[in-house]
């Protein structure tokens, strides 16, 4: 096989493409532009580590099943960790989102980075919601019986039945976390590929 043949292989082409867009120094950078110097930047990584806490605590809850936390003090505490991880996750994500909005972080061919972030946000809302209706307690009863009306009214209730515990639990622990984690990974890769958006060029405020 000639070197030309090797260069034309799909695998070789993919490797060139990946390493071209994402060389090691972009994956694990050791410097960053000096303008990345604000507390607002902390909330992106905070969102990610809170997500990892959500998943870790969710793993522990999954080991003993959805009813365990009602009958075990340890289970209840793990549920509390799961709940507060989610609260911190959303708190950080919302601040991250608003921060990126006010930076107009979609500038410079970063629109897809913004969009994957928004879809991750919406997916996370759905993931949290399915968690709330899978608690197997009064909260899950009330939230599901209230939420069904909105979802049913759109026609989506025929395939997304919030009163079906088994279905909601599967969405909560398999489908939506998988989508959220994949989207987060894509989002982070895009940030690494394009870099952090630079500041607006300094200009005097526009006259009214």
């Amino acid at each position: 096989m000639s070197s030309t043949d090797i260069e034309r292989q799909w695998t070789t082409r993919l490797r060139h493409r990946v390493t071209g867009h994402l060389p090691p120094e972009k994956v694990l950078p050791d410097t960053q532009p000096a303008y990345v110097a604000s507390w607002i930047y902390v909330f992106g990584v905070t969102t990610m580590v809170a997500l990892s806490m959500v998943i870790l605590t969710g793993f522990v809850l999954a080991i003993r099943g959805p009813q365990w936390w009602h009958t075990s003090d340890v289970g209840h505490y793990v549920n509390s960790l799961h709940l507060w991880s989610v609260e911190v996750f959303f708190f950080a994500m919302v601040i991250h989102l608003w921060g990126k909005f006010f930076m107009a972080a979609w500038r410079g061919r970063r629109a897809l980075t913004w969009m994957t972030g928004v879809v991750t946000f919406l997916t996370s809302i759905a993931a949290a919601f399915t968690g709330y209706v899978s608690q197997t307690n009064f909260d899950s009863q009330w939230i599901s019986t209230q939420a069904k009306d909105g979802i049913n009214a759109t026609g989506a209730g025929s395939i997304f039945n919030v009163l079906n515990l088994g279905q909601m639990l599967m969405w909560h622990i398999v489908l939506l976390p998988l989508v959220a984690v994949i989207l987060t990974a894509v989002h982070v890769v895009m940030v690494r590929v394009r870099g952090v958006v630079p500041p607006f060029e300094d200009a005097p405020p526009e006259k009214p």
Partner: protein
Amino acid sequence: MKRFRPDVDAPEYHGPYAPYDIIKEGTIAFVVVAILVVALATLFGSPDTKAVTIRSWSNADPVDFATTALGELNGTTITAGYGAPYNHGSLGQELGPLHLANLVGVTIPVNPVQDFVIAPLTSVPNDHPLRVALAQWHTASSAQRATWVSRYSHAAVHMTWSNGHIVVPATDTGPLGVMINSLTQMARSGALDQALVTGHGFYTTNYTKPLLFVADGTYFANLAKSQHLLGNQWGMMNETDSYPGQAWLWLYTFWYQVPPFSSSPNADVQVWAIMMLASALLLLVPFIPGLRSIPRKVRVYRLIWREHYRTS
């Protein structure tokens, strides 16, 4: 040369770079978030109010249970008049000319008379009076059943719970008295909970029918009201006790608090339409002129990048 669009294009950065240890940052963030989460969980815990069962409901408020069961027979409950995806009780909510749920159709069939009353009663063994009552119900015409239910319902405003029985001062109501009493006894024993969830077989994870039945009663809503969970109390974004709940649903829940949605019979589909539009706008901000200029015009970025502007 292509014109520079300040809300779309980013200037090339030729300024200085600073050391950045991404692994160290991630590790510190993880430790800090872990400490914060442990502290919050230890201080505040998490709510776990026991689920309402049909047994607990019918023991706490047998009259409400019996009234609800009668409503299922009478077709006056929320479920009976719901429409798609459960039944043909109504056309459902409309968005302009569209009844979206009705277009999709009945995909999760729920027949309140059969599923909540007749089928569970039929499963009760060794109850001769009940068997006779059910035979009378089954052999009666629809008009006769309606007459019985109507007479019983009119008298049911004086319904009481006395000596372990539902008492309704009504005559000529056919099998209704036996049926409602038997269903109430079945509910109070816990057998109705089982009958409703095992309708699909031994294994089940689908609680659609018992949840719909419980939600048809006022007992459930009164419990929710006492926990500030009703729709006009910012509803489902709250949790029992004083936990933050799904605070991120504030905008969704907000619409239910204001006219015209607070009194609209189509509020659910209208609010969903608004939220879909809002989500689409958020998603497509980078492409919407005017909207994408807001950050540049409000100049919050001056605060975020104040060091950069101060030194450059």
